[in-house]
């Protein structure tokens, strides 16, 4: 791959991960456990969709094929999607939703902190804007993990179940592949070893405060999202998300 293709590939992971998690969260619109939570969740979801748009627009420019952000989001099939597997996992109960959000937010936060200093100015600019939003996302999800973990007997059990259920998808967040390494080496993205350490450090700190038990670092992990190998859930998400664009291409009138 050329340097430009590597950058596109890396940015597509950021874009797709934001897009799919945003879509997942939007499924809770009208169904969240409390009105206040619903508003907060939709804020997070729309932040993520907005960030996805910014990354997609840059990817579209780089590839120079005349595609735009909408086409990248709505006209690619699952095997072309490069989102992290954790983002496509179902919402489950609220503890699962928050466990997913927390694991992702920690990764997202430290990734963006690295990207803010990117040698690519455009990347640094998009990241700086996103970091403000994600700092708040992380604060919210950390608080929920602590509240549920250190709450009642039942909330503790559910939160621990959520952590255990999703742990297998966290390896992908911090296990660097060739693209991650080359992006780091080019000074575009975060140092991969530091990202791993930061992620593990903060996750353990919050889980400990939440009286929850992490699983071992060397637990068996699902990988593949970054290569376009997805769990069965992604196809269903795309079917719903892309329906309108597929059925009524470029629909202009509602």
């Amino acid at each position, binding site marked *: 791959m050329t340097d430009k293709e590597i950058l596109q590939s890396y940015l597509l992971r950021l874009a797709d991960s934001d897009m799919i998690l945003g879509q997942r969260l939007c499924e809770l619109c009208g169904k969240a456990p*409390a*009105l*206040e*939570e619903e*508003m*907060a969740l939709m*804020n997070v979801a729309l932040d993520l969709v907005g960030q996805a748009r910014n990354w997609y627009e840059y990817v579209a420019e780089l590839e120079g094929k005349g595609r735009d952000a909408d086409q990248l989001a709505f006209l690619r099939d699952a095997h072309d999607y490069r989102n992290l597997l954790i983002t496509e996992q179902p919402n489950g109960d609220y503890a699962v939703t928050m466990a997913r959000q927390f694991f992702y937010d920690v990764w997202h936060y430290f990734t963006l902190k690295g990207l803010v200093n990117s040698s690519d100015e455009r990347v640094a600019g998009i990241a700086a804007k996103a970091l403000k939003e994600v700092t708040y996302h992380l*604060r*919210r999800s950390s608080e929920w993990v602590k*509240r549920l973990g250190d709450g009642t007997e039942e909330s503790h059990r559910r939160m621990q179940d959520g952590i255990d259920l999703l742990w297998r998808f966290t390896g992908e967040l911090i296990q660097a592949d060739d693209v991650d390494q080359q992006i780091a080496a080019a000074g575009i993205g975060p140092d991969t070893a530091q990202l791993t350490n930061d992620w593990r450090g903060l996750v353990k700190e919050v889980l400990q405060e939440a009286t929850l038990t992490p699983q071992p670092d060397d637990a068996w992990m699902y990988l593949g999202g970054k290569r376009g190998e997805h769990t069965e859930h992604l196809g269903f998400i795309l079917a719903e998300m892309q329906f309108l664009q597929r059925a009524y291409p470029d629909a202009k009138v509602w």
Partner: protein
Amino acid sequence: MAEWSLYEVFVRSKHGLNHKHVGSVHASDPAMALENARDLYTRRNEGVSLWVVPSSAITASTGDEKEVLFDPSEDKVYRHASFYKLPDEVGHM
């Protein structure tokens, strides 16, 4: 959710001098109330500062006291500063 209590939310807007009551949120504790208030009442760039106060901490006047409390002030126009000529330098009053 059943145990969540109610908090009153006050927002100070960019150009406002004081916090204004904007509504209420449910939350399990003050920290969560602040976050919920942020998400409900400052989404459209409304504020620069937030207060949340437990609704239970508010002592309110009741409707049947209305006449006793408020009617007597109705005919006391001299309490309004409308009889004074304000110098321009005073500005807002």
